[in-house]
């Protein structure tokens, strides 16, 4: 899948590296050529110098063939504009914009643009750490290249064991939540429909994990 990322700051470059490691075709757009240094030596994707709110720049970057579009420049207004160009002029299927202002983020969601608000999410995560809430603290647990993901068990997977979902060195199920109770997973634990599992996943296995659990999502979900 081809992904276009506008903005090569901390979030943009980290996301680019994650998607690249997962085997996707990644193109990063930024006005400042120096910003691409953040991508490091291992990055195999492409970079385009230019503003992400320009039709011609996005066309040159290959927006017409992109399956996903992410706007993470440091300006909320730029991000929504880039997202609207992606949606209305390139008809890209999946579009995500980072919007710091929660009120406007909600407004833009009505336009069919998925928005991620680090203000709300960040505040909630800090609160959870502060209050020592066990589940959310576990969710934000993320070390280096390995990500902690959560997913809900669907009816077709009910009755399967934890070991049926694990892949050696790539996917490990750590905890299971049934209702309000959380327990550490064992190999022979049987999963029930509606159980929420927390798994530790290697970057190259994220797609595989997402396919297995169609409802999988990254823990930093929209708050």
């Amino acid at each position, binding site marked *: 899948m081809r992904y276009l990322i506008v903005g090569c700051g901390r979030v943009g470059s980290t996301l680019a590296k994650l998607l690249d490691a997962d085997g996707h075709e990644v193109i990063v757009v930024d006005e400042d050529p120096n910003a691409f240094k953040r991508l490091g030596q291992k990055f195999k994707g492409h970079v385009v110098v230019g503003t992400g*709110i*320009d*039709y*011609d720049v996005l066309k040159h970057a290959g927006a017409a063939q992109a399956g996903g579009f992410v706007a993470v420049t440091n*300006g*909320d*207004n*730029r991000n*929504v*504009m880039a997202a*609207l*160009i992606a949606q*209305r*002029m390139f008809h890209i299927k999946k579009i995500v914009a980072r919007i710091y*202002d929660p*009120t*406007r983020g909600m*407004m*833009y969601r009505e*336009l069919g643009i998925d928005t991620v608000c680090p203000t709300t999410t960040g505040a909630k995560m800090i609160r959870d750490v502060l209050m020592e809430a066990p589940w959310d603290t576990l969710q934000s647990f993320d070390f280096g290249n390995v990500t902690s993901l959560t997913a809900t068990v669907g009816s077709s997977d009910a009755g399967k064991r934890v070991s049926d979902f694990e892949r050696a060195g790539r996917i490990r199920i750590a905890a299971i939540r049934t209702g309000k109770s959380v327990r550490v997973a064992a190999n022979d634990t049987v999963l029930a429909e509606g159980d929420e599992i927390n798994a530790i996943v290697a970057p190259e296995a994220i797609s595989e994990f997402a396919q297995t659990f169609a409802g999988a999502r990254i823990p930093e979900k929209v708050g």
Partner: protein
Amino acid sequence: MFVLIVGGGKVGSYLTRALVAQGHEVVIVEKAERKARLLEQLLERNVTLVGDGCDPLVLEQGGLKRADVVIADTGDDEDNLVVCLITKKNSTARCIARVNNPRNKLIFESLDEQNPVTVISSTEVILDAIHKHVTSPV
């Protein structure tokens, strides 16, 4: 008529002056306090509101709900787009926007197909003038 203008640059200040002279009620929103004060001195009238015109609360304070016309004329297309988005969501005012990149016109026009934003691109106006000059018979 009540006109709400976002952006106190040259275009905004001359617009305000002309509209006030014609007897219209005007509020002009400008982010930079210094610029807003200069504008007030120039116009000899208290019509400026200091704040970010891309913030729904600031626009509401400026009288968005009862505005007949909202003009987005900052120098940045993305800011003007957000002003139009907020206007379309919260009021029935006619919306006029300035764009720098003529390619962006389509995006502004797509916001409301029934009651489209009037988009003015100075780049396009100049290009048209050049085109007419070049193609007109001598």
